[in-house]
């Protein structure tokens, strides 16, 4: 066990736990931020996607000891009331079926638009390929990303 300081969604937290604990479980079990989902634990499905210093990554593969002073953003910290352009586009396009993977998809999409404000279909396919949607809402996700890109570039 060791004590660590974390900055998540702009808030400071002190945790005392096994330093090898993946950030996914720190968020879910210790900080009660359950919007970040467990899907596979091996970095292959993307349900646990978060931002570390603004870049998306799979939190099940990140030991908490590796975070240091880097800032974590989760779906709960993406916007105050779900009004981030990506979240709005997700609702406009009515993307979700079961909804379980969608927070991870949204976090990945936000990161994509940061690096590529006007992504092509191929950009989206490549960047989002780590995020599985078992219900098969891929086309709607693509549409929502393009819609958000358009609204942000106005």
């Amino acid at each position, binding site marked *: *066990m060791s004590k660590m300081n974390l900055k998540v969604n702009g808030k400071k937290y002190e945790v005392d*736990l*096994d330093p*090898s*604990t*993946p950030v996914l*479980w720190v968020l*879910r*079990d*210790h900080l*009660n931020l*359950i*919007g*970040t*989902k*467990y*899907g*596979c*634990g*091996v*970095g*292959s*499905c993307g*349900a646990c996607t978060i931002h570390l210093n603004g870049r998306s990554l799979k939190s099940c593969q990140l030991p908490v000891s590796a975070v240091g002073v880097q800032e974590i953003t*989760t*779906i*709960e910290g993406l916007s105050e*009331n*779900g009004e981030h352009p990506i*979240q709005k586009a*997700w*609702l406009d396009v*009515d*993307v*979700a*079926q*079961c*909804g*379980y*993977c*969608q*927070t991870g998809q*949204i976090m990945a999409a936000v990161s994509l638009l940061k690096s590529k404000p006007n992504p092509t*279909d191929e950009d*989206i*396919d490549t960047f*989002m*390929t780590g*995020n*599985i*949607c*078992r*219900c*098969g*809402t*891929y*086309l*709607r*996700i*693509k549409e929502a990303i393009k819609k958000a890109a358009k609204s942000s570039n106005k």
Partner: protein
Amino acid sequence: MDKSQNNSRRSFLKVSSITGGGMMIGFSWLANLIPNEAFANAETAKEWIELTGFIKISPDNQITIFCPNPEFGQNVMTSLPMLIAEELEVDWSKVKVEAGDYDTPRFKRQFTGGSQSIRMGWQPLRKAGATAKLMLMQAAANEWNLPIAELSAANGMIHHKSSNKSIAYGSLAAAASKLPTPEKVSLKKNGDFSILGTPQKNVEGSKIVKGESLFTMDYKQEGMLIAMAIHPTAFGLKLKSFDATEALKMPGIKDIFEIKVYKDSFERGGFDTRTFNNLVVVVGNTTWEVMNARKRVITQWEPIQETKEMVNTWGSKKEETTPAGLESTDAHMKQMYDLQKKPGKILRKDGNPETAFANAKKTLERTYSAPFLPHNTMEPISCFAHITDEKALFVAPIQIPDMMKQNIMFNLDLSAEKIDIKLARMGGGFGRRAYGHYIIEAGLISKKMKAPIKLIYTREDDMTNGVYRPSYMVTYKAAIDTNNNVTAIHIKGGGIPESAIHQNRFPAGAFENYIAEGWDIKSNITIGAFRAPGSNFIASAEQSFLDELAETIGKDPIDYRIELLKKAKSNPVGKNNDYDADRYIGVLELVKQKSNWSTANNKNAKRGVAAYFCHNSYAAHVVDITMKNGQPVVENVVSALDCGLVVNPEGAKNMVEGAVVDGIGNALYGGLRFENGVPMQKNFNQYRMIRHKESPKKIDIHFVQNNVDPTGLGEPPFPPIFGALANALYKATGKRFYNQPFINDLNKS
């Protein structure tokens, strides 16, 4: 207005007042259906639903509809309340929808599955809305001392036109709740709707994009412990012994013990799987601690013996044998090929197929196979339980709460009134969550720990302790005469452990001489319902074969299907043909038109077609592909559906898109291999799921416009996509694909 409806059975509606004024209307969705109607066909009999729900009208005019139907992505939390709102005459944008709990006596019976929610909810849900509206109108008539005939209802208000008076439902609800329930109500005519047929968004969309707590995995309670179970490493093994000495020393670990899930005396129902009945359970403070300690538990497994037991499925008892042994995919394939060479059990026979084959100028014979499939719901299996002397609380992702209740009572020694099951939104279902062994597991753990616990399956647990789609094989054979006419069809096939043959489905009825035979192979690998059970394989084989047959006799694949269906309609062969030829033709004609099938360049297009009917709805797809680096790129899918009236076009389209993507993914990549009882893929780094870049670039969906009462869409669009893809792959590669997943043969070429 038409279709006067009797509230014949007292149990259908229950109206009550709520504290502070207001009205609560409970209804049992199927209580007014006669049993014969509900059990009209065999498919439905196994998978029908009976649900109850609630409408709440508060004094401040807030209309809340409690949707008791468990939601797992099929969007029933939106579409079912729409049925109520339509007849209730309320502003849909102001209706609040909440998930109901499994909470007797409020909700008497709940079962979800078989694409039946909309079909079964169509009459009773609208009746509930219409009854409530009529009672509110009566309350207004009493209040104003006016004849009810002079009043009308709209947007949650009752109006009197000549005096220009209006009153909100909320102000009438308390009085309405004290009125007698009307004997008869009228429902709107199909086509006269203002909410139904308009696209409406997922009522939980906003919660989903914000990551709010909706799923069982997210549920928490003060003092809750985390539990994980260790199950045998292979099917065919059981627990012999375990040593938890080291694991118990690990930080955060509370206890490690064995549970026996179902009692020996438990009479299994069709949804009770007990393949791994003895589990080692690790309980601790946090998920990560439990995951780590679990690795330190030393387990020993031993072979199971053959068992025979009676399984009670929907009242019919059948002896089920679970063989001993460690099974492998290669041996399964050999066993299936061997049985294909022997006579099977005759399921249906029309005319004289033997003579037709003896006289045939040539025959076309093709064999198709498919592997076991895990459901791989994105949210792995989980369940919360807190059992105290007073109460047993479960938060569970379950499709069949009512049946689980009997199971819980028996195996956890709990009386009915103590049990409270809260139904969480499910992170995918696809059939997996009809098998609720995990609820008993969670209950036993909570009982032992005397604490609230959440049982979590890791992805590996979920994939290797699954309830899989069976593995199948089927051979289609056609007799062709000197005039290139098909004179007989022979279908023979089976599966592990059950056959997928639906002997009364198309093309039965279209051929003078027809025979279908089946067989099965016992197995100790757990199987169960998977999106369109049986159909999800047989449609692929049948539709691939018809495509090859049409080509062999020189006909266009769509025209040939339509020709056969016309024959089956005008001069049907045999009895019990289980399809409506006109509606089947309808989707084929529509997909033909929308895909520009008849244009000149169609011949060169790399496209395939397939159509199928199951779960009361009709579906046809045309798939266009190109090949890139030896792999198919799905450029476009055109889909035609006939599910009668489309209740929520937005949700309906999403469902069809999902089925298309799911079907393409499973056809190309899906399959769980076994070696010596061990599932060879355990997680998404080994099991290939369809991803963004493999998804079709475009899906163009069209519905047959009619006023037929609506049917479901969760399953029907899924089975035919496999065949359409196989037929497109043939056009693109010159090779026919007979064995799923297609990627194996694709990579060999």
